[in-house]
């Protein structure tokens, strides 16, 4: 029985465009600010999740990317919750929100630290919001690297499948700072049915890198 890891779904959001498995599924003119664009995307996909509006921008981005990714691959929801892991990465950590929080404390005459903003000053909260929404209880990691690093994601995920019972990992890159944003998430699953694999790329460093760059 040949159990191989495959990339079974891909969702990318950048330049006010959302693509699922290589096809554009939603688009807005480039002038619309990212927060507006994300809310428009949320509404367009008829997501029913009021907590979305409490999230900071980068969590909205990660959340929406997973929402659409899983919309295109609903069989992921059939895995037992403790067997799905989330391994994400970016460059700026939570800097976008750090700057917002700093605004609430920098002026000693107007010092009102906001708990609702502070809670988002950690990058792994993106993972937290995704796990809460989809009830994923498996392995979690958040990496911070200058650029998208397929090596660390590949090595980490290979090890997760080798040393734990995890059956599926959602992985990729969720970056947002000021007006620049860029997310790329995919589902990695262990498949051993040859017929199912014909449309999927094998999970390796080269494929992961090529899909991100496309």
């Amino acid at each position: 029985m040949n159990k191989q890891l495959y990339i079974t779904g891909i969702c990318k959001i950048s330049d006010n465009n959302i693509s699922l498995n290589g096809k554009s599924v939603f688009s807005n003119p480039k002038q619309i600010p990212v927060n507006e664009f994300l809310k428009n995307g949320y509404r367009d996909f008829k997501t029913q999740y009021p907590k979305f509006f409490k999230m900071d921008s980068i969590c909205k981005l990660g959340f929406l990317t997973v929402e659409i990714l899983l919309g295109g691959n609903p069989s992921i929801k059939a895995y037992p919750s403790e067997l799905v892991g989330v391994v994400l990465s970016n460059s700026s950590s939570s800097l976008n929100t750090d700057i917002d929080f700093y605004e609430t404390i920098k002026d000693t005459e107007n010092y009102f630290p906001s708990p609702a903003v502070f809670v988002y000053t950690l990058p792994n909260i993106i993972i937290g919001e995704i796990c809460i929404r989809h009830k994923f209880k498996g392995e979690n990691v958040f990496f911070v690297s200058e650029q998208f690093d397929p090596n660390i994601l590949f090595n980490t995920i290979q090890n997760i499948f080798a040393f734990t019972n995890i059956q599926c990992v959602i992985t990729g890159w969720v970056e947002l700072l000021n007006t620049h944003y860029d997310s790329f998430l995919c589902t990695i699953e262990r498949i051993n049915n040859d017929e199912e694999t014909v449309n999927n790329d094998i999970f390796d460093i080269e494929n992961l890198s090529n899909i991100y760059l496309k």
Partner: protein
Amino acid sequence: MQNLIYKLKQEIIEALNLEEMTVDEIETNAPLFMDGLGLDSIDALELTVLLEKEYGLKIHTAEEGKQILYSVRTMAEYITKNQKV
């Protein structure tokens, strides 16, 4: 008091990012936590910041907080009673 209640509802919507709610949809007497609006612990903390920032009022204990933040009405009553003009 009605003006204050309206203003408070607007402030709550903004402070808690209740994007899809309108002022009319927030019932003045309904509980803000548990049932009613179903706000959580971070929302409670954010409302204590709101009271301090906009009205100069501090909440000193969790018990006190539970009573003051029970509903929009209890918040308005507390502000009316204690706000330094």
